């Protein structure tokens, strides 16, 4: 049993391992108290817009069987404050450990996406993740992710204005995700991440009202994993760019499942809410799984599906 080589290459960048945090579930100052995130292949900062966003009123989260709904509404301090206050801390924690820094980019319009992306492109980050799949904001977000023409329009507009590798994060709330994936690839996406949350709703039958103040929200957690695995498997066969697979990864074998479906890397989201140190534990479990099952590297795992 030898130590597997966990290194992967995405968009010309080497990651030391394929495990990342998913957007909206990681805070360097808070998550970093529970585990050393410089052990991960990459971390993803929560969605950032050109100007600060308030987000939605509470309640913003609701538990479901095997998952949770959220309607945070992309509350964020804006790209400028992130660059000034958060990013130096993230870089200081990572030091020379090589963990890649991905920033999730949000907007209400093509121009807003471009403005936020340009600010972040000029900062000390490694990759940009274009969030065209948030179900919880009124304009933008999922509106761009459910229409191939709009997905292509925002991708190509941002692509022209940034130099860094551009990941486009896709929503599962579509009839055929490969159509959107192909449109994003044709418009210049360097990689895809999927899936964002599935839209859902919970009703409090005693109050006779939706549990979430926003009415609806996005479903994540282990309940969505089979949906995510299938979508990764389909998209991997439809495009030539790498995929960061996510959706309900709770353990190392879940991560292996996504890699076997064709993802080049994986991201851990809701698991980090259920257990603050989950991303680091899942990396350890994936490493052990590969060693125990004779996978020399991630490529071997990716090619293993019969």
């Amino acid at each position: 049993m030898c130590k597997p080589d966990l290194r992967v290459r995405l968009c010309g960048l080497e990651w030391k391992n394929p495990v990342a945090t998913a957007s909206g579930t990681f805070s360097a100052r808070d998550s970093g108290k529970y585990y050393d995130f410089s052990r991960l292949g990459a971390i993803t900062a929560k969605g950032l817009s050109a100007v600060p966003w308030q987000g939605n009123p509470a309640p913003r989260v609701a538990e479901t069987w095997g998952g949770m709904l959220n309607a945070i509404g992309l509350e964020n301090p804006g790209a400028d404050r992130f660059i000034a206050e958060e990013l130096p801390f993230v870089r200081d924690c990572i030091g020379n450990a090589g963990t890649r820094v991905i920033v999730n980019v949000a907007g209400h319009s093509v121009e807003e996406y471009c403005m936020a992306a340009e600010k972040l492109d000029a900062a000390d980050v490694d990759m940009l993740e274009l969030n065209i799949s948030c179900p919880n904001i009124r304009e933008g977000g999922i509106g761009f992710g459910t229409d191939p023409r709009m997905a292509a329009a925002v991708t190509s507009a941002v692509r022209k204005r940034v130099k860094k590798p551009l990941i486009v994060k896709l929503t599962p709330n579509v009839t055929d995700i490969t159509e959107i994936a192909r449109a994003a690839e044709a418009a210049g996406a360097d990689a895809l991440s999927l899936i964002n949350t599935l839209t859902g709703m919970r009703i409090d039958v005693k109050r006779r009202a939706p549990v979430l103040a926003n009415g609806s929200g996005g479903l994540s957690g282990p309940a969505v994993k089979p949906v995510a695995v299938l979508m990764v498997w389909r998209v991997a066969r439809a495009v030539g760019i790498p995929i960061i697979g996510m959706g309900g990864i709770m353990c190392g074998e879940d991560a292996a499942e996504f890699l076997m479906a064709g993802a080049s890397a994986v991201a851990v989201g809701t698991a980090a809410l259920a257990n603050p140190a989950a991303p680091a534990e899942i990396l350890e479990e994936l490493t052990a799984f590969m060693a125990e099952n004779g996978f020399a590297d991630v490529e071997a795992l990716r090619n293993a599906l019969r």
Partner: protein
Amino acid sequence: MSAGTRGWTAEKRLVFAKILSNAEIARTIYRMEFEIMDEDGNSYPAPAPGQFINVYLTGGRMLLPRPFSVCDSAAGRLTLVYGAVGAGTRALAGFAPGERIRVGPPAGNGFDVAAAGTAAGRGRIVLVGGGVGAAPLLLLARRIRETLDGGDAEISGGMTFGGAASATGVVSGVNATYAPPARSPALHAVLGYRSEPFLVSAFEKYCDQTDVATDDGASGFHGTAVDLLKEQTLTGGEFFFACGPRVMLRALARFAGGQGIPLQVSLEERMGCGYGACLGCACKVASPAEIQHRKVCKDGPVFNGSEVVWDV
């Protein structure tokens, strides 16, 4: 926080706790005492009053941690008082002594005891609790006695703890007898319940006066805790601490605001992670800053009553 991979140690970790007791103290209200298991030799921080802990249950319906304010704590033992109202709390009620649960470290910003000491002067500190909201006020009562009176406020008999942990985490083994009321400021608890009071005798050990109100008049004053408080004579120099249903806190904030009485409230909100990462538990505050939302789990759960935007 160290840079890079070398020399990093976790500041916070989940630990196992062994349940010592878990009993119904009023209808659907449970009191659970547990002992932190010290397997790795790490010390568990002493919770400050108003702080909460996340309890990690397992299973398909209980993916997310459950936040509970700490009702009492001493020497690695914690007491929670909770209502069995949902899937998680009902599951918690089913745990037996000897079983283990996983818990996180004390979290959030608690009550500012020092502010009360300064502001109240020779006045009166009033703890206003609604239902299980009384729970964190008990630890607060104990700490206020320790802080303002100097020394250990625990009285002999009744309480199950061997020693009191101070706010700095130093454990004291001295059990001085506390003899109310000849202290200043006076400590007064006003506790509101639907029908059946609980924890009242525990409050009486620390408070100069403990008043009970019930919605149905079954015990004590017929009405809410805030109604009862309004009927009492203000002495000047009051300081309010409160925890309870949002409607109660809102009514109290209006009353305190009108009288110019400082008020700290402990808020409850549905949480995702419970440690500051997901922004699930938003509290709207009146602030000139661009973002008016604060995290209940990290910035709170205790806020100044005057800064909370109640009508959202």
